[in-house]
């Protein structure tokens, strides 16, 4: 079974994670631009972060046989630094046309402020102009209201719902998101977002149409194998292989290949992992062969 993790912050993860992901069958990942855990203070820091998403991080993932894509955007939290936000918004066209950029994102609301709304609107217009899909981050607090408000603004700007993935859904939001024609993504993240047993129940209730599973694994307590573990749990609880394929692999391709930049052929005919690309004493793998046999952890994420 092949898997895609269409939302994972690889820059915060180790090479051990990449090895385990590749072993578990993850063939491609999408890394959305996000907040790094502390606020950036200069536009240059954003420039170099975007640059690494389209450059070195893509290369690093490739060393482990994983195709790396990203989304570029100004996240909601940092949109509140208005002086900085203007500079970052001006910088986006420099990065949005890169080869591995599959969407504008992750953008949306955090505190539901006017500054956040302005950044969201500017970036929706950019996505429309460049014909790129959009990845929407929905807030942890006041989630339902934030989710509905995001969709209202998207419709006001004339973006087609099939071009937009609404992420971090839960039992409260997903029906409305699906009814309005959007892709509904679910983040399997310990303690704060979605557990994978709950995810199985959602698929049992709503089916697999337009539903996408991701991990959002980042610098917090999170799990880069969340997608594969959820896929296995679905299979063990009687969900058909076809539905697992759709929610954990194919739907992400259908949604993000609307950019024309997320083609299955990229990883079905992959370059062999070229260890000779690595620099002795200065390499990603430090000259070591990846160590197989990662410990098996509990498969339940709650």
């Amino acid at each position: 079974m092949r898997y895609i993790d269409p939302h994972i912050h690889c820059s915060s993860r180790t090479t051990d994670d990449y090895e385990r992901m590749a072993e578990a069958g993850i063939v491609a990942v999408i890394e959305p631009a996000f907040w790094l855990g502390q606020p950036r203070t200069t536009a240059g820091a954003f420039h170099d972060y975007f640059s690494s998403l389209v450059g070195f991080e893509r290369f690093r993932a490739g060393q482990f046989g994983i195709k790396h894509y990203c989304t570029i955007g100004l996240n909601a939290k940092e949109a509140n630094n208005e002086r900085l936000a203007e500079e970052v918004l001006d910088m986006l066209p420099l990065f949005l046309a890169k080869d591995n950029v599959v969407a504008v994102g992750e953008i949306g609301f955090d505190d539901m402020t006017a500054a956040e709304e302005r950044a969201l609107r500017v970036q929706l217009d950019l996505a429309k102009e460049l014909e790129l899909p959009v990845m929407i981050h929905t807030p942890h607090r006041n989630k339902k209201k934030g989710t509905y408000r995001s969709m209202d603004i998207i419709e006001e700007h004339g973006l087609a719902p099939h071009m937009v993935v609404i992420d971090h859904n839960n039992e409260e939001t997903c029906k409305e998101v699906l009814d309005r024609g959007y892709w509904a993504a679910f983040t399997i993240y310990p303690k704060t977002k979605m557990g994978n047993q709950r995810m199985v129940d959602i698929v049992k209730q709503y089916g697999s149409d337009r539903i996408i599973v991701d991990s959002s694994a980042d610098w917090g307590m999170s799990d880069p194998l969340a997608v594969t573990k959820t896929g296995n749990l679905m299979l063990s609880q009687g969900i058909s292989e076809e539905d697992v394929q759709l929610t954990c692999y194919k739907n992400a391709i259908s949604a993000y290949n609307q950019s024309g930049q997320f083609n299955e052929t990229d990883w079905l005919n992959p370059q062999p992992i070229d260890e000779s690309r690595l620099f002795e004493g200065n390499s990603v793998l430090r000259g070591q062969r990846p160590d197989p046999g990662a410990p098996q952890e509990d498969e339940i994420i709650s």
Partner: protein
Amino acid sequence: MLRSWLETAADDAALAWLDDRIAKVESGDESALYLGFGLAPRKVGKLPLELSSLQLDLAREARSGWNPSTWNIGQAARTLLLLAIPSDDPGPYFARLEKLFNAAELQESVALFQALPILPHPELLVDRAVDGLRTNVKFIFSAIAHNNPFPEEYFSEAAWNQMVLKALFIGAELDPMIGIDRRVNPTLAEMLIDYAHERRAAKRPIPVELWRMVGPFADETALEDMTAILADGTELEKQAIALALAASATDEADEILRTQPQLAAQIDQGKITWSGICAAAYAN
């Protein structure tokens, strides 16, 4: 010339898009440059150019040492956009290139570095090329170092020497470096002899191409190491040592080479060459 290569490689709609972009870039439109540079492969094409030997000959005639044999369609389109940047005033021209370099993804970096030999104001781009070699990505290193006349023409001796030494460290070939024999120098030979000696002391293999730059300057330490390798090295190592000895003008080197009449004869007959040794070393 580049534009004519695309005539056969891309369809009319793609060429129309490209020509429109080129006109905008020529008129000084910055955002058309940055977006166009990114979009070029998806708009014009991603397949290899597959230039004929005649086309490659013409390319070399147009610019000595220029070898676009590995180029693809999108890269050619990107290069045309670079050539469209107004360059009469070096200040703004350089600022635009800087912006492209600073935001470049992997394939864009390759296109930028492989365009160096045909861009205007090359002297402004030397530091950028030297800095590019500090990369951790081998194919970007190769875009600068291999089949590219720029380093030979513009690099200081120190920068050239670092490029050669780093190539050996990262397992990049030396034979495709244009000017590899013309730019030998005693400082480089000394660095390489030290490196070879260090590798021998650690019982680690020595890259066979290293001896190519050592030959003309082989000192006592080097000759000792070379003699030892002639005694216990692999067949390929022995060939490389013999070829390096043949390039040395000293009596000591001649004497050592005479102990290997078979190898000496093969060298005289042109059967052992650095290109052959490089190909064999990187054959796997």
